[in-house]
């Protein structure tokens, strides 16, 4: 398997991983924020 193929696959893997990490952080931050707001409403 050539170095060019490896370089291309590393670029794809790096880019998609960073996209997944960013999306996960945003999603879970949003969920934790929602939970925090609900607890504030319930208990002040």
């Amino acid at each position, binding site marked *: 398997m050539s170095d060019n193929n*490896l370089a291309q696959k590393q670029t794809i893997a790096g880019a998609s*991983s960073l996209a997944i990490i960013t999306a996960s952080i945003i999603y879970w931050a949003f969920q934790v924020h929602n939970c925090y707001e609900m607890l504030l409403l319930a208990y002040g």
Partner: protein
Amino acid sequence: MELLPFFEWLETSLLGQAAKSYGGLYAMFQSAHLLAMALLGGCVLITDLRIMNIAMTDTPARAVVDGAHKWFKVGLIIILATGVFMLAGVATKCYHNAAYWAKMAALFSGILFVFLVKQPLLKYDLEQIKPWVLKSVGISSLLIWFTVAAAGRWIGFS
């Protein structure tokens, strides 16, 4: 595309009726689903921690990656098969459940990531792959499957 008719059909199908009517059968499928999740989760954890050089560093990474991937596929097939049966019993409830769609989105992303990105990359000599790429692949894989598991549990509480 409207998916609700499909979910309604699934719930009224033979599969849906069996899942609704026979609690023991549903429990058996759910147990198999949970065991397959443990198998899949174990394979994901051990592969990702190994490629990030955190766990099993005394075992060759190639042996861990290849060995775990075989069992990952077994776990995934069982999860999908038992998941369809479990969905059939509560299909319309799941259709209106945001956590269910979050789980499906994460599961679909996880499957695509494993078979189109992670495994094609890990076929190469791991020594040749840049460490930051291996670390980011490991972290993102853990995050995806964490989201699948967490959203799956969330379905039962929402």
